[in-house]
Every structure is written in C-alpha cells, then in structure tokens.
C-alpha cells in the first residue's frame, strides 16, 4: 500500500496548439449553425424536437391541403403570401419556444462568459442568434411554400403559367422573410431579457396577443383613417400592411389601406431596427 513518494511528469505529448486558428468569422458561423440546429432540436434529445417539428408538421399539412385542393378543384385557397398570415399563431409559438431556447438558456447557465472570452464579440453573438431564428422561421415558411409551388407546377400547363408561379413564389418567399424578421426580432429581444425559458415564452406570446385588441379597438372606434392605420399597432397586422405594400391591397384578405402602405413598410423596418438595436445594447450591458 505504501509506495515510495516519487514524482514523475510523463511526456504524453501535451503541447500548446500551434496550428491555424479559424478566427472570428468561423466562430460566428459555427454559432449561427449551432443555433439554427438548436431551434429545430437537431443534435439534441427527442423531447426538444417535439414542439418545433409539431409546428413544422402543422404548417406542412396546411401547405399540402392547399396544394391538394388546388390540384383537384383548381381553386386557389391560399396564395403564397397568404400562407404566413394564415399560420401566424404557429409562428408566434415557434418564436416563443425557439427564442428562449436560444437565448434564455445561455443567460441562465452562465455560459456567456465562455462565449465572450473567445474571438466572438458581443454584437456577433446577438446577431448570430437573431440570424439563426430568422433563418429557422423563414425555412419553415419557405419549405411550405415550396411544397405549394411544386404542387402548382405540376397542375398548371404552359411555360408562362409556370413562370407566373415562379414569380409568385419569389414574392411569397420575400414576404416570408418579412414575417421571419418581425417575429424573430421580437422573440429574440424579449428572450434576451429573461433568463428563465418558462417565463420568457409566455411573455413573447403575450407581446403578440396583447397588441391585437388595440388594432380591433382602433378599427371599431376611429374613422376611416384610424381604421387604415390601426394595423400599425400589432405585429400581425403590421406585416399584413407590408403585404399590401408589396402586392397591392384589396386582394384576398388584405385590407384596403388607402395609401398608407408605405408607412407600414417604414414602421416594420423601424420596429425590426429598434429590436436589433435594443438587442445589441442589451448584450453590451449584460454581465458575462
């Protein structure tokens, strides 16, 4: 049991790493990719995949049903821009789940000090996370719109019809990006302020839900002008205004906004910019 008290340091080849270091850009890209995978629960346990893929499933079903109806009855139930508006509550849910997953967890587990002691700058971290959520939501919508497109391509005849479909799809994808930006910007900002996921998620939802009645109020209360600008006060109706600006109002369910469309676009841009700005300020101030 008693051995002579000797001490030897074995040379097992430990050396400082002298090779190339991939630097900040690679680190940010890795953070972005990792966050995007986290939003969909990839690379994690089955439980973390339930909610994101549930949302994907429902949105997918909507896309399939719409495509099927178009193929069989020839009737267009939902246009490409119509899809994000139709499944908006699901986008809110996705943002409410993924946002806290991406941001609140790091705040809670005290991992930020590890991140910030690497080449990744604070602003890089915040923007990478935001970009990941924007991409996640956009992919969700784009995938569904692609399904609709493929179905349509096989239904319509003639190259000009297909070309029309393609341009419609492009418009739809652009609109999906607008949705993704708005939802992600708000979800990420709110999640960055709260370190507990279970609290951040309902508050993200509340932020979207609570503003909706304001719109309803203005619609019911004010005159024509009030009704036209009422949509500015809730994210869901705000993006609808951008849709009116991009594709023309009075079409489908898009309300007639009487010339205020560009205002919607400006306010949307302002909202996203404000969220991003606040996010950056938040991460400059947070104690790592």
């Amino acid at each position, binding site marked *: 049991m008693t051995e002579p008290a000797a001490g030897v340091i074995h040379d097992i080849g430990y050396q400082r790493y002298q090779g190339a270091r991939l630097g900040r850009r690679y680190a940010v890209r890795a953070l972005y990719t990792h966050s995007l995978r986290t939003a969909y629960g990839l690379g994690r346990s089955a*439980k973390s995949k339930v*909610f994101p893929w*549930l949302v994907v499933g*429902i949105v997918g079903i909507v896309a399939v049903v719409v495509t099927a109806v178009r193929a069989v009855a020839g009737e267009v139930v939902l246009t490409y821009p119509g899809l994000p508006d139709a499944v908006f*509550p*699901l986008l*809110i*849910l996705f943002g*409410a*789940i993924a946002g806290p997953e991406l941001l609140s967890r790091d705040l809670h587990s005290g991992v930020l000090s590890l991140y910030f002691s690497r080449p990744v700058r604070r602003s890089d971290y915040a923007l990478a996370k935001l970009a990941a959520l924007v991409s996640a939501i956009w992919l969700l919508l784009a995938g569904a719109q692609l399904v609709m497109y493929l179905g349509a391509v096989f239904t319509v005849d003639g190259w000009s019809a297909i070309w029309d479909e393609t341009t419609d799809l492009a418009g739809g994808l652009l609109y999906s990006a607008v949705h993704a930006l708005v939802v992600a910007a708000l979800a990420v900002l709110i999640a960055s302020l*709260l370190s*507990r*996921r*279970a*609290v951040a*998620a*309902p508050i993200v*939802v*509340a932020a979207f*839900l*609570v503003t*909706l*009645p*304001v*719109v*309803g*109020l203005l*619609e*019911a*209360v*004010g005159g024509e002008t009030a009704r036209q600008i009422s949509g500015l006060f809730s994210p869901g109706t705000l993006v609808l205004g951008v849709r009116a600006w991009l594709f023309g109002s009075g079409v489908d369910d898009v309300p007639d906004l009487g010339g205020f469309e560009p205002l919607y676009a400006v306010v949307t841009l302002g909202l996203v910019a404000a969220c991003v700005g606040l996010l950056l300020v938040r991460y400059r101030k947070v104690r790592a």
Partner: protein
Amino acid sequence: MINLTIVRLTLRGLFGRRRFLLLLPLPALIVGLALLAESLGATPPDWGQPVLVGLGFAAVLPVLALIVGASVLGSEIDDGTAVHLLAKPLPRREIVLSKLLVAFVVTAVVVGAGMLLAGLIAGSAELALGLLAGTAVGALAYTALFLALSLLTRRPVLVGLAYILVWEGLLTNLLTGTRVLSIQQYAISVADRVSGTDLFTGALSPQVSLLMAAGVAVVATALAVDRLRSFALTGDTS
C-alpha cells in the same frame, strides 16, 4: 383540506419572484385601453369586443393563469424544493388543493380587478359583475389545467402555450364544433349570461359552460393529485 402554511409559502414564493411582479401590469392594460377608447370618443359597443374579449378573455386571462398555474407547483419541482413539501405527512390532495386555491385566487383577483374596472368604465355594474364571474370561471378551469400540466409534463408552459395559441387561438375559431372544449368560451359565455350584455356573445349556454369548466377543474385536479402521490425523485448519477 386547505393547508394555511402551504398557502402562505406559495404566496410568498409567487410574490417574492421579480418576474411575477412584472406581470401585474397586464390587467392594467385592459383598463388603460378602455380608458383610451373612451377618451377617443368611442362607445362601449365599439370597444367592448376587442378590449374585453380580445384582450381580456383571449390574452390576459389565459397567459396570467398559465404563468401562475404552471409555477405554483412547477417551479418547486424544477428547483428541487418540492421535497420540502412532500416529505411531510400531508395528504397529497391537501397540497394540490392549497396550491390551486392560491393560483385561482391570485389569477381571478388580478385579472378580475382589471375586468371589473373596465366593466365600470363601460358604465354598467352588471357588466362588471358579469365580467368578474366569467373571469372567475375561466381562472378556475385554466389554473387547474395548468397546474395538472405542471405535474404531467416537463415543459408545462410550452404545452399550455400550445393550447392557448393553437387550440384556442386557431382551431376553435376554425372548427366551431370544438368550441365546447375551449375554456375561453366558458369564460365568455358565463360573462355574457350573467351581465346580459350585448357587447359580446358567448357561443355556449351558461349551463354547459359551468358544467364543462367544473368538469375540467375536477378532472385536472384529480389527475394532479394522483400524479403527486406517485411523485418520484430522479436519482442523480453520483
């Protein structure tokens, strides 16, 4: 049936956490919006639906009930202090009922205050009482459901959110047959009948609403009690 010490501990736990205090302004929004509408010259028939139903019953009530109901037992299970309550010779029913009481009363009072005031702003005491009644019914059913969820799943808040957004937000608006399974409708229908108002209409009869709300509360609570009896501590790996 109700344990005062548990009630006291739960109340302190709720109000001691900063994040809960951040939620208290939500019902104030209802009042604020009502005042805003009135100041803009709108009449209750104009702002009744969006403020009382759209904001009150559809957003503030379920969200507050979710946060309170899921954390009243769930936060203790999460941070490990549940053993303090469970390693005691208390019938599990007593524990669940005490916590449910706290969740229900807090939700009903906090949201109810906002709704009551909004009803008074609309100029009718009957409306105010009706809204309070609807809030109480909704609060009971919601908090019982979310408390049960906190024992049934590991992510009760997300399941609750999915219920609010997907089930109540989306599906029950699309498929009118499912309205009988929507707690939101119970609350609205009871408020409608008790106040006799024209400002909004509930889709169900008050009897069905009360019955279903009571049913949800009883079933959810029974489930919760049973799950608490079989509460198991997961062993650590060391």
